[in-house]
């Protein structure tokens, strides 16, 4: 059983010795913090951009279109570094907050397209019914169209969130130690490649799995008005 001993030794060296698991735990914390804040702000940005794109006002359309084009046309690492080293260069906020802002700007572009499609998917008769009752455009949007759109887009939004969690693996570029970077540090310190990298993958996988299960639960709650 030498391979098992080997495995145990390497595992010990990589994760237990010198309290290296603390590094990994902190990394998990950073990943979760950045992803949560970025998702939250990304949805807000996505909403605003979607409304710009759906607006009848030409200047707003243009803002929405340029935003989506620029974000989709450039790599997220580049965006992260521009936000961190250029836009927020002289702002001394916590690193993770600035990183989350960068990711939310990126995610917002994708979320806006999801939301736009979701709003368009709601039958126009719903808007007409709301307006014919005397509700104004904003009230109709908020009470009638958006709740239905949210239900339709929830799976796509969940997917975007999952992508976002994995995207955050590049925060090492601006000096944050997330799961990926923690794995990297352990690799450098131990001269082991297999264990830290597979460990990193397993941690991401478990995190995403938990997230998927959580999203599925919320979605089934949202579907309660579909029962026949």
């Amino acid at each position: 059983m030498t391979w098992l001993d080997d495995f145990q030794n390497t595992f010990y060296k990589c994760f237990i010795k010198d309290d290296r698991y603390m590094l990994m735990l902190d990394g998990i914390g950073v990943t979760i913090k950045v992803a949560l804040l970025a998702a939250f702000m990304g949805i807000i940005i996505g909403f605003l951009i979607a409304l710009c794109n759906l607006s009848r006002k030409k200047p707003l359309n243009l803002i929405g279109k340029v935003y989506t084009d620029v974000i989709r046309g450039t790599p997220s690492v580049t965006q992260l570094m521009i936000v961190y080293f250029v836009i927020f260069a002289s702002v001394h906020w916590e690193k993770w907050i600035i990183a989350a802002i960068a990711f939310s700007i990126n995610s917002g572009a994708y979320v806006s397209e999801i939301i736009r499609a979701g709003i368009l998917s709601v039958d126009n008769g719903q808007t007409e019914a709301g307006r014919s009752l005397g509700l104004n455009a904003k009230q109709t949007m908020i009470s009638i169209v958006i709740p239905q759109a949210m239900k339709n887009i929830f799976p796509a939004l969940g997917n975007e969130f999952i992508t976002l969690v994995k995207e955050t693996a590049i925060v090492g570029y601006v000096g944050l130690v997330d799961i990926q970077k923690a794995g990297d540090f352990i690799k450098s310190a131990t001269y082991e490649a297999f264990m830290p990298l597979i460990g990193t993958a397993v941690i991401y996988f478990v995190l995403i799995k938990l997230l998927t299960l959580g999203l599925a639960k919320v979605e089934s709650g949202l579907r309660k008005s579909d029962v026949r």
Partner: protein
Amino acid sequence: MIDVKHLKKSFNDLEVLSDINETIDEGEVVVVIGPSGSGKSTFLRCLNLLETPDDGEVWVDGEQINVPGIDVNKVRQKMGMVFQHFNLFPHLTVMENITLAPVKLGKLTKEEAVKKGEELLATVGLSEKADAYPAQLSGGQKQRIAIARSLAMEPEIMLFDEPTSALDPEMVGDVLDVMKKLAKSGMTMVVVTHEMGFAKEVGTRILFMDGGLVMESGTPEQIFDDPQNERTKLFLSKVLK
């Protein structure tokens, strides 16, 4: 109550309403009949500005409503509308469908609206469905809820856009019964329909539309028993067998 003068409406190059002039008085039940594409629905939708007229005037309660600066939402609160495809809000329960507008618009408190909703559900015979979602209802039930939802705003006028056209035949009667009750209560109604029996029985006046014009207007007896216009005769000969 409603005055329509020289109303015109086109969609792109298609002229749907050529020149409509009509006055609808309080308490009238005006039933609009005519072949498909004659402009009946568009006429109805111009009355609450779901369609914007290209030309002409629409007056409601002595106020012209198709002019800039008018509060369209206020006008619509006076005019309920029932759609062919019900358009109930699927994410809300029946009671929430009914109470949404009066509460949001500050017309009633939540408690008052629920009480009103219970009364209305009793009127349309669906008291037991208050907590159901629209997906759990049959077409006829949905349409009766849609009528209750409109009535919750206590409108002065009710517009019906082919309210029974999307229903299975056995559901039509229930919906028409509710509409008859409403007509008897003195509600001013404009009904676009293919239900000639209803038109005859409940209508106080029939408008026959064709080609974007009102070709003939009169009491049900005049229109059904003694039509003057050739096109009215032709249409009726096809629908009344």
